[in-house]
């Protein structure tokens, strides 16, 4: 009974229930979702038809991208623990998903990442020192590098997805041949704006690839409590989007799926939904303690599916890599990361005087008074042109 004083109770449902399921006079087949991987968890090729036909140098470039992503991540975590970095969201364990989605893009394509796509952003041309600036709370970090056709990620879950869709609508209107790739999490799939974007993209046949990185968790909420149907690719059919489900820890599977989706969009056939099944190995963010809500065994089980190890095994089997090369490469990349940290430290200068300078093209008259008031404040405090923050 409703705690609200209930209205008069009535007889039970008047008609005896009929089981529709078995007696329909017609039906619409919804088809199926293909589930793909190229490499299994040991790195063995299980689907050579899908194996991308890439030169060896490219395979190694992909490997380096994944390792760079991981090393940067671990370094940032260390820096955060030492107070040199703000809260950020480690991409640990999602390196294949990340690199696999940007690898097939051209530089003219548009990338709209989420906050957990640091490795992919580096691949797209963001310098590591700039990304460090960004996550350390320096406004300069947010400037999009020259020549990089990316959108800023959005801290607001799902809010970048319609913007990415709008870019794709613009592309479609102008008959430009580029495409948009955007990613978001399983949690983001619950946001209405993501559904609205699916529908807009489908209606306008906008060239956009939606990549949902289903990493098992949205902070403390597991996918089963997040979604009525945890197969997120299944959302596609309702909105009229072709969809595929990929092993997100298999970089070759990701490349195969995303290449296909990008090609589909580029030839004008419209949007595509790629569900990448992966796992968030680390903290949600550095402000989070996953021990409160998830079991160590679950994390352990996923360690065995490590995307980097898997790809290493593949490259070893193809004689492109051995343990010594792995160690050497790792060291090289570590040095890159340390050099970036050095540059970051030199660039880490707060600019308190800038805060009014990017809001409008020209500061309106009635904001000039506020700026003057603020400048007075800085002056009283003795804050210099490039204050230390």
């Amino acid at each position, binding site marked *: 009974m409703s705690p609200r004083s209930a209205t008069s109770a009535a007889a039970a449902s008047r008609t005896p229930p009929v089981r529709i399921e078995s007696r329909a006079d017609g039906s619409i087949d919804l088809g199926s979702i293909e589930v793909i991987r190229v490499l299994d968890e040991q790195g063995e090729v299980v689907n050579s038809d899908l194996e991308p036909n890439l030169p060896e140098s490219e395979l190694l470039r992909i490997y380096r991208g994944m390792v760079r992503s991981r090393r940067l991540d671990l370094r940032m975590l260390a820096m955060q623990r030492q107070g040199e970095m703000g809260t950020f969201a480690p991409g640990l364990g999602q390196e294949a998903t990340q690199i696999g989605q940007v690898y097939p893009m051209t530089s003219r394509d548009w990338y709209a990442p989420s906050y957990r796509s640091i490795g992919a952003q580096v691949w797209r041309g963001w310098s590591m020192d700039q990304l460090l600036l960004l996550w350390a709370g320096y406004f300069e970090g947010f400037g999009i590098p020259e020549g990089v056709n990316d959108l800023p990620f959005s801290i607001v879950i799902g809010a970048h997805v319609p913007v990415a*869709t709008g*870019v794709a609508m613009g592309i479609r209107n102008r008959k430009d041949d580029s495409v948009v790739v955007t990613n978001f999490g399983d949690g983001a799939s619950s946001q209405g704006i993501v559904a609205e974007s699916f529908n807009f993209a489908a209606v306008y046949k906008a060239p956009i690839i939606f990549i949902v990185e289903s990493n098992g968790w949205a902070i403390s909420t597991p996918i089963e409590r997040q979604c009525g149907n945890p197969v997120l690719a299944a959302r596609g059919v309702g909105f009229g989007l072709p969809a595929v489900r990929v092993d997100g820890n298999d970089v070759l599977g990701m490349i195969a799926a995303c290449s296909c989706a990008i090609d589909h969009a580029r030839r004008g056939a419209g949007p595509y939904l790629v569900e990448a099944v992966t796992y968030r190995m680390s903290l949600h963010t550095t402000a989070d303690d996953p021990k409160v809500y998830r079991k160590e065994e679950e994390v352990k089980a996923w360690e065995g599916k490590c995307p980097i190890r898997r790809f290493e095994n593949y490259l070893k089997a193809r004689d492109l890599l051995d343990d010594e090369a792995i160690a050497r490469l790792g060291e090289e990349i570590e040095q890159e990361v340390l050099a970036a940290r050095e540059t970051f430290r030199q660039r880490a200068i707060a600019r308190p005087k800038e805060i009014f300078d990017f809001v*409008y093209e020209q500061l309106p008259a009635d904001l000039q008074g506020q700026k003057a008031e603020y400048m007075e404040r800085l002056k009283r405090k003795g804050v210099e042109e490039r204050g230390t923050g």
Partner: protein
Amino acid sequence: MPQLTMVEALNLALGESMAADDRVCVMGEDVGVNGGVFRVTKGLLDRFGPERVIDTPLAENAIIGTAVGMAVYGLRPVAEIQFSGFTMQAFDQIEQNMARYRNRTRHRYPISMVMRAPYGGGIRAVEHHSESREAYWAHTPGLKVVIPSGPRNARALLAAAIADPDPVIFYEPKAVYRAFREEVSEEPEVMEIGKAHVVRPGGDLTLIGYGAMMRPVLEAADDLVQEHGVDVEVIDLLSIKPMDTIALVESVSKTGRCVIVHEGPRTCGVAAEIIARLNEQAFEYLLAPIRRVTGFDIHFPFFQVEKHYLPDSDSIVAAVKETMTWT
């Protein structure tokens, strides 16, 4: 010079802007084939084609979000929200992308777009169709907010809004849509955003309004001048944000008295902001408290009684007379 209604004048401005700049496109629910539920976009689909006049699905948040994306891509979308009551649906994308993108990307992606919406009461409409919540946008950093009051300034300000490098909320007083005609120049005309207009000079009291309220404001002014001997100066704000503080301060420094009129709820409304600024910058000239004749802090009532809720010339006259009693 043709005599146009505000709807026709807005339609003219859209057509002119689209003809002059092929980046300008129009989007929203029913703006294409149907020409908009108020016919503001009538004929544009035939002239400019479906790539530039885009009928969208029924989802305001995505309309604004995708318009932001189109602006990022370099187009200049003019997105219509069918009634301003439904901008609530789009609050997310307005506040979190439209208003912030330029800042977030440090000028790399300025958002040169307009969100148009009919606002305000007086047309005997159902719930959610009579709201005036321009104060939400005035409070939101990164936006500009423009509200015309007649056909001529509607045309010139919409042209300016479309050409503006920053995102503009453009609220159209639907009670004025077909209320009267005005001469509108055959040449394209543009007015500067951010300037108030002294509609009637006067020395005794400053009467400030905007949008649909300019009609009762002017009616009250006539009455006050002719029947009560109060020489009011009437100011049409036109731009809510940026606000032409200088013009307001100048006027009130002269008259020492002020009454402000708007339809929206009172608390934290536009009149409150004007009072705050006049207090800050014209304090020594004030001879009487500044009065607000505004909507009340209640839901817009159902249409059989809306005429009592809305500020009318009678209430404005009463407030002015009260203000004049202070010595």
